[in-house]
């Protein structure tokens, strides 16, 4: 269990620092803050391009997106916890074309873990956003009971579908998971899954395996994963995140390293970052939404800053 008094001390100190920081900030020009946020790598810019968005991680269109690096830390909030991981960071790039949004996530991982067995787990990555129905920011760790999060999940095992193992039995009458309609058990045609969550252990698949509203694809090459997620800017359903040109939305990340036994809560995570959808208008327009998000939850911003200060 976490030491609460210690934590709150750190928090109050952090929030004091933060108040000073905001007061200072408010006295200067808005764009200065935006520049600050950019320089600190809090915002990933979804650069606006015309034409199709790439689904292939190797597509040269990705060169037109400016990436930021996200430090990742082992998940220690809920059991089972992890304390060590070989995965320390990922790089995120984003693009939009006024109709669709695409994200490219790359991270270093020496082993490609795409096969699943009793003791073998798949590499995976996830993006997390507040659901469109969530007002303000949900808790960065899987959302909370009031505010749900929308999770886009990609899994190496679904990408390769390399289930080349010998199967001896022939009967399909015993596939409990399939008969129960468990999305994990169904034959997957897409390597991605659209989920909603409201706290640890609550991730729930929102669509049938073959009609997920997000698409994606991943490739492992010389010690590096590159995974693309793509979806229309808007999407029906109150649990889905909605984007629009000129908007800013919080987003967070998680990576699973199969060879280290990662699955479920055993993963490395980030706190909230922001994605801004580029528009021709001045970039100061991001200031207000970001301030609203951060200002409303100063303590959490304190955590973000704290983590950032340690790691950058």
């Amino acid at each position, binding site marked *: 269990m976490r030491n609460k008094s210690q934590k709150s001390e750190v928090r109050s100190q952090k929030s004091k620092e933060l108040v000073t920081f905001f007061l200072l900030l408010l006295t200067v020009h808005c764009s200065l803050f935006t520049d600050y946020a950019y320089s600190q790598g809090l915002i990933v810019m979804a650069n606006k391009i015309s034409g199709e968005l790439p689904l292939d991680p190797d597509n040269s269109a990705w060169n037109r997106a400016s990436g930021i690096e996200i430090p990742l830390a082992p998940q*220690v909030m*809920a*059991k*089972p*916890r*992890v*304390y060590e991981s070989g995965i320390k960071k990922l790089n995120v790039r984003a693009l939009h074309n006024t109709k669709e949004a695409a994200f490219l996530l790359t991270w270093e991982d020496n082993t490609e873990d795409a096969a*699943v*067995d*009793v*003791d*073998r787990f798949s590499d995976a990555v996830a993006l997390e956003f507040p659901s469109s129905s969530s007002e303000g920011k949900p808790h960065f760790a899987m959302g909370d009971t009031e505010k749900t999060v929308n999770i886009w999940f990609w899994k190496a095992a679904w990408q390769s579908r390399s*289930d080349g*193992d010998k*199967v*001896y*039995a*022939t*009967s*399909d*009458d*015993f*596939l*409990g*998971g*399939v*008969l*129960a*309609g*468990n999305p*994990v*058990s169904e034959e997957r045609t897409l390597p991605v899954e659209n989920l909603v969550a409201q706290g*640890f*252990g*609550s*991730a729930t698949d929102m669509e049938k395996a073959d009609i997920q509203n997000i698409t994606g694809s991943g490739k492992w090459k010389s010690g590096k994963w590159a995974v693309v997620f793509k979806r229309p800017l808007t999407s029906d359903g109150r649990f889905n995140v909605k984007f629009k040109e000129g908007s800013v939305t919080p987003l967070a990340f998680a990576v699973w390293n199969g060879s280290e*036994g990662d*699955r*479920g*809560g055993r993963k490395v995570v980030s706190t909230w970052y922001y994605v801004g959808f580029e528009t021709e208008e001045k970039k100061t327009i991001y200031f207000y939404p970001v301030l609203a998000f951060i200002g409303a939850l100063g303590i959490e911003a304190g955590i973000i800053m704290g983590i950032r200060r340690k790691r950058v």
Partner: protein
Amino acid sequence: MAKNKVNNWQIRREMFYPYEEVRPQKQFAAVFDINKCIACQTCTMACKQTWTTGRGQEYMFWNNVESKPYGFYPLAWDVKILEALGAQNWDGDRYSGKTIFEAAPKGQAVEGYLPEDADYAYPNVGEDEPFGEVKKGDYITIPHRVWHFYLPRICNHCTYPACVGACPRKAIYKREEDGIVLVDQKRCRGYRECVRACPYKKVFFNKTTKIAEKCIACYPLIEKGEQTQCIRTCIGRIRLNGWLHLPEKADPSNPMDYLVHIKKVALPLFPQFGLEPNVYYIPPIHVPAPYLRQMFGPGVEQAIKTYKTAQNDETLLGALTVFGSSEFRVSKFRVSKGVVTGYDDKGDELVKVPLKEPVFIRPFHDEKLQVYRHNIT
């Protein structure tokens, strides 16, 4: 996950468990008499045929029978968890060591390990391999100097299931009506925390459906008042199924309560793990006590002693005689005039079995048929 203090009567003390103590209205339980098991594997095949002949289940035996001390399924399951748990001391009949919940490493719900795929590859490894060597001039003593025995195993439908305690999605649940522990086939996402956590290794990962599966205690039969497939088909008539109460509420006319709480001849498997498992074993009388004590706790010697009195104890003999006598659940028994009668949940008569099989002696030469009889039974 908050930690709660719960009461575990098998270790005679309170212990930590991730959830509160909530006991089901009724608890599914079984008694297996190891002395009578012949390792015919009829139970294993009955279970296999009924529940696990599908894709992804090839390697699964929800019921298995292993030879002890050298048989394991999966490989070395007991050795590994016993070693991880470290010293397990009893203070009289109170366990003073750590349960797997109390020994949980930092950040984990329980102490456990995940078997490798290959650990399941030889389900009957070590079959019939005895401990010790037969030396010239050896003769049989009780306990045997050279020994082995068969250990039939199913899920224990534990009162404090480690599988439930470790699942971060709350996808495993214990039924309120009968205490049967089930994996929700819709909610499970295949994290295998339960496979890691169950010290008896009775949750399995299905590679085809990508989720966990386990013994379901044949709940469709239980709901109809019948006994499970492995129990009703047992050739050796070593098994009995029923409802078990807490020791202070033991009902002497219920064969489970009678054998477990009153006569204390049936003991839980590795009670020190802290799960309060609900399959109880009558320990084998020919095996040296130290080995059995580690396996069944400090009550082993007394249990064997009491078991040996069965031939002169009509009630005990009666309770043991209803084993395998009916496909229905024998919830109550009564012994009278050398006959045991079994009753169902409602108190209706199910079966009558004589405590002593009648013996008929017929002449060597049959006058009527004009044949000689050979010595057959």
